[in-house]
């Protein structure tokens, strides 16, 4: 794997060019250009906020901030995998004609989406200042969380992009799984609600399993690290009481370890397949 990484490093200018191309082309002929990548999550978050404030009140002050802080990393996860799943197949012409390290294709998609994500995070901090929310002391965890998520996403991107060359069904499977995981991950609701319900049903141990999922642990960490504990007005809206629980560093460490393993496994899998891409007639 190290020789593959060294070769990839030699082609770093290609990676940069591909990322630049993706950023340029994506919004090339649209008037609002880059702002579309902000408008999309903001409109989603505004819609969900209206539902969870007025239709099914969740009772958390500043709910939109707690939603946005989880929704942005989710967007990064989802968009990267959707873009990456097509990345190798859409460069088929090129693969059959020129040598270059094939992994630049999915990797450039993940990096382009990460740049969108980081810019959105900047906007998120501006939004916090505007609504007057305090900046919590654990904000320095942000780069750590981004790196962990990057490793997880890249590992998965390698796997889906390689598989999609051989099985065209993969992109549909990925999009179905993403739909399911949007609801399984604590994005629109709080992880503590899952904890409280599992406790009440006598399956408290299952919550450990829930936290073992690296995606859950990462999203929970974003929320706990970047925002103060939310206050729930007592007995207000939800049929059961729940309260904020602090960031559990043990599960974050496990998520980091799992993400590294996923990255290595994904990259190895991609490398084992990448020279047969061009032969898949």
């Amino acid at each position, binding site marked *: 794997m190290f020789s593959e990484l060294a070769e990839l490093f030699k082609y770093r200018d290609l990676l*940069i*060019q591909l990322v630049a191309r993706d950023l340029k082309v994506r919004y090339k002929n649209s008037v609002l250009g880059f702002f579309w990548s902000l408008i999309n999550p903001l409109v989603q978050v505004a819609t969900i906020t209206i539902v969870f404030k007025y239709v099914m009140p969740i009772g958390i002050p500043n709910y939109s901030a707690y939603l946005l802080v989880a929704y942005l990393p989710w967007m990064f996860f989802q968009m990267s995998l959707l873009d990456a799943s097509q990345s190798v197949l859409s460069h088929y012409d090129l693969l059959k004609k020129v040598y*270059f390290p094939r992994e630049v294709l999915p990797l450039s998609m993940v990096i382009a989406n990460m740049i969108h994500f980081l810019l959105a995070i900047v906007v998120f901090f501006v939004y916090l200042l505007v609504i007057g929310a305090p900046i919590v002391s654990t904000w320095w965890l942000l780069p750590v969380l981004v790196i962990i998520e990057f490793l997880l996403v890249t590992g998965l991107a390698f796997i889906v992009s390689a598989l999609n060359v051989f*099985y065209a069904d993969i992109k549909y499977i990925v999009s179905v799984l993403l739909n399911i995981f949007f609801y399984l991950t604590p994005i629109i609701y709080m992880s503590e609600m899952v904890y409280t319900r599992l406790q009440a049903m006598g399956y408290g141990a299952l919550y450990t399993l829930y936290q073992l999922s690296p995606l859950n642990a990462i999203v929970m960490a974003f929320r706990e690290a970047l925002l103060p504990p939310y206050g729930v007005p007592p007995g207000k809206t939800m049929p059961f009481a729940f309260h904020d629980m602090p960031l559990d560093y043990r599960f974050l460490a496990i998520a980091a370890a799992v993400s590294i393993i996923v990255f290595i496994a994904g990259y190895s899998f991609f490398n084992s397949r990448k*020279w047969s891409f061009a*032969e898949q*007639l």
Partner: protein
Amino acid sequence: MQSAIELQGLKKSFRLVHGQAGSIKALLLSFKRRKPEELMALKGVDLSIAKGETLAVIGRNGSGKSTMLGIVGRIYKPTSGKVIVHGRVSALLELGAGFHPELTGIENIYLNGAILGIKTRDMKSKVDEIVRFAELEKFIDTPIKGYSKGMVMRLGFAIAVQVDPDILLVDEVLAVGDEAFQAKCYEKISEFQRLGKTIVFVSHDLPAVRRVASRVVWLDKGVIRMDGPTGQVVDAYMAGVAADEQH
């Protein structure tokens, strides 16, 4: 004489996928079926190409010419046998494969250069020369989706020859553009020859082969049928093709 490329017992087979290729259904069905059919594109090729030599590979469609070039250019891994390459290889395979229609000529120059392995830093000093060679000064800041086919090919060729390789692989691209541009292409090829670079090219264009190559290899169904000086091999090939057509 030192060799630039050594092929030893080179074999390459491709798997032929029948019917529903590329779906989960095919995967599930394939458990029940016999092994997929194999197509032997190269059946043991031994070839040594000297440094500075210009070698043309001719043969009918499906003879394995492009596969051989693809293996030297690291697009395919050989099934068995050895490939030894001394020097930096660049492929001039179907020009403009990496172009993006929405990007301008300049943007595509940087992108295509990077695909061919040129550093962005080195590319900066070559841009003017590329634009001049491609004769696209007026259009270089417009998206290439507005270019004609000839303009795209000229730009592709202009970039590819800037890679400055030790070994240049050319697949059927010398018939690019109008007469004047073709003359420039041939001029560039002979400049490469003067500089002592190795050129391997695949072509059906026999006059071009006679004009450029010093040695010709005739591939037939994955094996070398003849290898020798240009005139002899091309004559034999033409006679062979004519004989095949009479049958």
